[in-house]
């Protein structure tokens, strides 16, 4: 008599437990989904390593020391260039050169750098002097790496790879097919994906292909931090005016950081840099720079306004016919639909410049 309700409750509990188990297993199965993930950066590292080892070398994976000296400590991306991603490379010889006196280091240092390079034997290891620094393991560094917007470090996804290579230079004291020295070295390649690399790529592709380029602009943290919010405008129509700190479509009180944009570095026209104007309207360059073919025109003053807004937008790079490059005095022209259709270059037009503009995501 007293056991019946207990048995009923127990059966109900068992039923409930089994039902829950079935639901849980089904839920786990239904929740699982296939995610296609393309490791674009990793792919870019291996593709770039392949192409660098072919096009930057005298033979496969054997680099010419003279060519490396020419690009050492520059932001050039020589031999091979990935448009969307920037790369920096460091090539370092693998082993220290043993020695017992200074003279033994002469040919080694001369081979790597040039005949005027200072050399010495220190603790039984050769040292060469490069850029006023003594080094035991000579190395070369070049390429794009994220810089700083004043004190804010630019950050973005990156991937790297390490490859065995060799550094070669025709021996100055010998001649002939087999009289060259190759020194084992390591190539460390790192690929970066930042707003500047993406934007310079869009500009480059728009200029060369004469087609509008577009992608989602999701307001990187470092840009938001630089502004104090995801918003900003660029150059004003007059040198005495500075527009700053956009919020929505209205510009607000000028801040200390206005006019953030990409511009040719006036001292080095091969470089495109993020720059800004301070409250007094003075142009300030940041160290966030990337090389961009000097023949590609973009962003003339007065038509170089960027609208960042408060949410993700579509950013477009629009090729403009050369006839319209100097005729523009248009204010607040950061919206793509403000660009007259007749100014956009087509297949048979000469491109004068490329403008970046923003559009809402439909």
């Amino acid at each position: 008599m007293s056991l019946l309700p207990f048995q009923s409750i127990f059966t109900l509990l068992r039923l409930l437990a089994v039902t829950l188990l079935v639901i849980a297993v089904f839920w786990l199965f239904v929740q699982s989904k296939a995610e296609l993930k393309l490791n674009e950066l990793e792919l870019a590292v291996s593709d770039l390593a392949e192409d660098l080892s072919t096009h930057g070398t005298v033979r496969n994976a054997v680099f010419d020391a003279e060519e490396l000296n020419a690009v050492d400590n520059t932001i050039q991306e020589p031999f091979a260039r990935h448009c969307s991603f920037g790369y920096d490379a460091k090539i370092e010889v693998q082993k220290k050169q043993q020695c017992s006196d200074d003279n033994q280091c002469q040919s080694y240092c001369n081979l790597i750098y040039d005949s005027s390079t200072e050399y010495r034997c220190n603790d039984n290891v050769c040292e060469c002097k490069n850029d006023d620094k003594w080094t035991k393991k000579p190395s070369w560094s070049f390429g794009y790496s994220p810089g700083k917007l004043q004190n804010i470090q630019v950050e973005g996804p990156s991937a790297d790879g390490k490859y065995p290579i060799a550094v070669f230079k025709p021996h100055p004291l010998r001649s002939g097919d087999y009289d060259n020295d190759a020194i084992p070295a390591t190539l460390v390649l790192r690929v970066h994906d930042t707003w500047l690399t993406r934007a310079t790529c869009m500009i480059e592709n728009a200029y060369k292909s004469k087609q509008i380029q577009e992608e989602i602009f999701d307001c990187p943290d470092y840009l938001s931090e630089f502004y104090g919010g995801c918003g900003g405008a660029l150059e004003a129509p007059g040198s005495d005016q500075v527009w700053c700190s956009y919020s929505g479509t209205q510009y607000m009180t000028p801040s200390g950081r206005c006019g953030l944009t990409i511009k040719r570095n006036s001292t080095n026209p091969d470089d495109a840099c993020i720059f800004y104007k301070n409250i007094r309207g003075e142009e300030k360059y940041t160290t966030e720079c990337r090389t961009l073919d000097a023949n590609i025109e973009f962003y003339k003053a007065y038509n170089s306004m960027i609208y960042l807004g408060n949410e993700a937008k579509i950013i477009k790079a629009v090729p403009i016919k050369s006839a319209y490059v100097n005729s523009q005095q248009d204010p607040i022209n950061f919206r793509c639909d403000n660009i007259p259709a007749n100014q956009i270059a087509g297949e048979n037009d000469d491109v004068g410049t490329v403008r970046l503009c923003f559009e809402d995501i439909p």
Partner: protein
Amino acid sequence: MMEVLQWALLSLVVVVIVMIGLLTPWTDLVNEAIRTSAQIHATQIAGIINLLQSSPDKTTHSYILPNAECNVTIGENILFRIKNAGKYDRASAEIIKTNITVQKFYTECNDTISKGILFIREGNEIKMIEQVG
């Protein structure tokens, strides 16, 4: 206690049988997602060109295009468009710039006829030929 375990075991067997039944259509869905992903096709084509740039002269590679409504434009970059569930999926991938010239090329896929692209490294140039059938 034994009865509870029997219940649980029976339920699990039923669930596993249902899951196995669903696995095949689920795998087909994944394969379809891969086949109709513009990003995958664009990236694969860019990868072929990037590798051919560092390959010996006369190296070739064939790429089979999907049997779908799609087109590919090879220019400064790779642009792939494919129609999937009535909508065009569009993606681009970058070609690494070296001293090798990449020929400009455009082709369309076909729903019924199998088509492909033959990539050829010829001297300092990469050429493309459309393949049908």
